[in-house]
C-alpha cells in the first residue's frame, strides 16, 4: 500500500513538473512549435496517467482554464490553434455519434456545419436586409446565444429531414447520398444570391456580429478594463471550450444510456437489433439529429469567430478531414475523437505549415545541397509547388488508407471494442446469392 501510494504521489509530482516545465518553455520560446507541442502533449499524459480522477480534473483544469489562456495572451497564435482544435473536436464528436456509435457513414457532415454557420451569418450581418425589409439587421450581439440554440435545433431538424428518406439505404449508398446532399447544400449556398440574395453567393458574408461581451461591465467594475480586441480571442477560447465540454457531457450521457446501447446494437447487427425490439429507424434518426445539431451549433460559433463565411469553408474535404479525425482516434470512442481531432488539426496547422516555412527558408538561404555521388543541388530551385501545407488531401488520404489496413479500430479504441470493425473474415466480402 505504502509503495503504491508513493508511486501515485510521484506520478502526480512528475506530471505537475512536466506541465510547469513545458509551460515555461512555451513562455520562454513563444515562437517554438515544438515547445507548444510538448505542452499540448501534457493533456494526453494526464489522460493516461494512473492517478485519481480528481487529480486528473485538477490538472486538466489547470492546463485548459489557467495555463492555455495565459500562454495564449502571450502568443495569440496558440490561442487560435486551440480554438481550431476545439471546433474540430466538437465536429469529430458529432460525426463520431453517427459513424462510430451507429456505423452509418455520413460523408456530408459538413453540410450541417454550413447550415449553422450561415444561419448566424445571414442574420448576424446586414445580409438579411437583402430579403427582409426594414433594416433590422445585423441583429444585436445579444441574439447570438438565441441563434446558437436555434442553430442546434435547426441542425437537428435538417438531420431528421435528410435522415427520413435516406436511412433505409444500405451503408455505402447512404455514404454517397449524404455526399450528394452536402454538394447540393454547397451549390445552393454558392448560387442563392439570386433571384433573392440569401447567401451572397461565392463572395461570402461579412462582417458577422460577434457574441456579446456581457462580462465587460463586470471586468470594468473590478478595475480590469481591457479593450474588446484583446478580450475576444480569450472569450472565443472559453466559448469553444464550454461548447466542447457540453458536447462531451451529452455524448457520454448518451453513450451510457439505453439509446447508446441501442445505437451500438444497430452497429453490430441490425437484424438482431430489430429482433430485440430496437426501433431502428427512430434510433438512426436520433443519431443523425444529434450529430447534425452538434455540427450546426459549432457552425454558429465558427461564423461568429471568423466574422466571415463563404462556401469554400464547407467543401467535401472538410467532411473527409473530420472523418479522418474520427477514424484516427477510433470509431465509437470519445477520447479517440478528441485525440484524432487534435492530431489532425495540429498536423495541418502546425506541422505542415512549419515544414512549408522551413522549406521556404531553405529556398531563400541560397545554399547548395551536396549529396555524395549525386552531385549538388541549388536549394533555391525547390519549386514552390512542394509546400507540404498544400498536400492536405494526401495526408488525409494516407491516414484513411493506412488506418483501414493496419489499425481499423483506431489509436484509442472504445473499451468494449466493436465487432463491426475488428471481426476478421467473419463476413464474406459478398454474401451468397439468395441470402
Amino acid at each position, binding site marked *: 500500500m505504502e509503495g503504491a501510494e508513493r508511486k501515485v504521489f510521484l506520478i502526480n509530482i512528475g506530471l505537475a513538473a512536466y506541465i510547469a516545465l513545458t509551460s515555461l518553455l512555451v513562455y520562454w520560446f513563444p515562437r517554438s512549435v515544438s515547445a507548444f507541442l510538448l505542452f499540448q502533449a501534457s493533456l494526453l499524459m494526464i489522460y493516461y496517467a494512473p492517478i485519481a480522477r480528481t487529480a486528473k480534473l485538477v490538472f486538466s483544469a489547470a492546463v485548459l482554464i489557467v495555463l492555455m489562456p495565459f500562454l495564449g495572451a502571450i502568443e495569440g497564435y496558440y490561442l487560435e490553434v486551440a480554438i481550431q482544435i476545439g471546433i474540430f473536436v466538437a465536429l469529430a464528436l458529432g460525426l463520431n455519434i453517427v459513424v462510430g456509435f451507429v*456505423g452509418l*457513414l455520413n*460523408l456530408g457532415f459538413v453540410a450541417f456545419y454550413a447550415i449553422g454557420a450561415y444561419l448566424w451569418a445571414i442574420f448576424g450581418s446586414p445580409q438579411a436586409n437583402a430579403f427582409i425589409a426594414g433594416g433590422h439587421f445585423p441583429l444585436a450581439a445579444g441574439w447570438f446565444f438565441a441563434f446558437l440554440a436555434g442553430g442546434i435545433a435547426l441542425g437537428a431538424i435538417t438531420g431528421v429531414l435528410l435522415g427520413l*428518406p*435516406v436511412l*433505409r*439505404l*444500405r*451503408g*455505402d*449508398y447512404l*455514404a*454517397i*447520398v449524404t*455526399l*450528394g*446532399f452536402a*454538394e*447540393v447544400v454547397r*451549390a*445552393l449556398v*454558392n*448560387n442563392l444570391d*439570386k*433571384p433573392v440574395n440569401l447567401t451572397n453567393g461565392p463572395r461570402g458574408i461579412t462582417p458577422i456580429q460577434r457574441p456579446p461581451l456581457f462580462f465587460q461591465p463586470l471586468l470594468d467594475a473590478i478595475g480590469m478594463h481591457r479593450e474588446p480586441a484583446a478580450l475576444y480571442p480569450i472569450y472565443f477560447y472559453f466559448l469553444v471550450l464550454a461548447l466542447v465540454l457540453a458536447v462531451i457531457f451529452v455524448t457520454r450521457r448518451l453513450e451510457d444510456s439505453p439509446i447508446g446501447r441501442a445505437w451500438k446494437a444497430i452497429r453490430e*447487427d441490425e437484424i438482431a437489433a430489430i429482433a430485440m425490439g430496437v426501433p431502428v429507424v427512430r434510433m438512426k434518426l436520433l443519431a443523425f439529429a444529434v450529430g447534425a445539431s452538434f455540427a450546426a451549433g459549432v457552425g454558429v460559433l465558427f461564423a461568429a469567430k471568423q466574422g466571415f463565411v463563404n462556401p469554400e469553408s464547407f467543401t*467535401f474535404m472538410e467532411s*473527409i478531414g473530420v*472523418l479522418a479525425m474520427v477514424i484516427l482516434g477510433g470509431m465509437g470512442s470519445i477520447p479517440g475523437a478528441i485525440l484524432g481531432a487534435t492530431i489532425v488539426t495540429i498536423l495541418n496547422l502546425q506541422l505542415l505549415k512549419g515544414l512549408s516555412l522551413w522549406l521556404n527558408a531553405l529556398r531563400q538561404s541560397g545554399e547548395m545541397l551536396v549529396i555524395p555521388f549525386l552531385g549538388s543541388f541549388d536549394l533555391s530551385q525547390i*519549386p514552390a*509547388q*512542394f509546400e507540404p501545407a*498544400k*498536400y*492536405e*488531401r*494526401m495526408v*488525409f*488520404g*494516407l*491516414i*484513411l*488508407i493506412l488506418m*483501414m*489496413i493496419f489499425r*481499423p479500430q483506431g489509436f484509442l479504441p472504445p473499451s468494449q471494442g466493436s465487432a*463491426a*470493425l475488428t*471481426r*476478421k*473474415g*467473419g*463476413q*464474406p*466480402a*459478398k*454474401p*451468397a*446469392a439468395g*441470402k
Partner: protein
Amino acid sequence: MDFSSGIFFQVAVDGIVLGFMYALIALGYTMVYGVLEFINFAHSEIFILGAFVGAELLLGLEASGALATLHPAAVILMIVLAGMLASGLAAAALERIAYRPLRGAPRLVPLISAIGASFFLQDFIRFIESLWRNTFYLNYPTLDILDQNLTLGAAVEIPFKSVLVIFTALAMLAGLYLFVNKTKLGTAIRAVAQDPDAAALMGIPVDRIITLTFFVGGAMGGAAGVLFGLHYSLINPYSGFVPGLKAFTAAVLGGIGNIPGAVLGGLVLGLMEAFAASYLAVITNGAFGAEYKDVFAFAVLILILIFRPKGLLGETVREGA
C-alpha cells in the same frame, strides 16, 4: 420558350457526348460493384489519371515535333491507348495495395480506404505534375482536326470532337460487350459477379479475375479521361471528382452492377444535364440557371436511391450487412 430545332439539336449532341463520357466512367464503377459489391470511390482519380497520361504523351509528341508528321488518327489512337493502359494498371495496382488486404472486412472498411485512395491520388498526381512542370493545370494541345465542324444539313453543325467522342465510346462499348460476352475471361468475370464461391469451385482464379475487372474498368475510365481532355481541354488533378460522382450516379441510375444499365444511365443523365443546363433558365424564367446542373444530377441520384434503388435496368439489390 425557344425550342428552335438548331439549338435543340446542339444541346442534344452535347448531352449525348456527356452521356457517353459518363457511360465509359460508369462502367468502372459498375463492373467493380458487380464482382465485389464495393464502390471504388477512387475511380474518379483513375479516370483523370488517364487524362493526364494522354496529355503528357500529346505534349511530348508536340515537343519532339512528331505531332506534325503523324496522322491525327494515329495520334488519337496512341493517346487513348496510353491513357487506357495507365489507368488500367493504376486501378489494378490500387486493388492490390489498398483493397485486397481489406477483403472480408465489413463493408465500410474498404469504402473508407477507397475514399482515402481518392484523396491520395488527387494530390499524388498534383505532386508528380508539379515536379515535372511546376504547375498542375494542363492544357491539351489542340489538334487542328478536332476544331473543325461537321456540317449536317442546313443550320446544324457538329464539332468534330463530339463525333470523335461518340464514335470512340461506341467502339469501346462494342469491344467491351464482345469481351464480356464472347471470351473466356469475360465469362469468368460474369461468373465471379454471379457467385464468387461457385466460380472458385469451378476452377476460376477469383483473385486474378477481380484484378482483371479492375484493369478493364480502369482502362474504360482512362479512355474516358483522354476523351474528356480532348473535348474540354483544361484538366487538373481535382477535375475528375465531379464527373466521377456523376458517373456513379449514372451507374446507379442504370442499375449498379449492370453493364448495359451503365450505358443507359450515362446517356439519360448526360441528356438530362445538358437540357437542364440550357433550358432551366428558360423554364424558371431566369431564377435558376445552368449553375444548378450539378444540383440537378445529385437530386436525381438521391431520388433514384430513395424510390428505385435498383435503377432502371437493375436486378434487386441484395441486402447485405
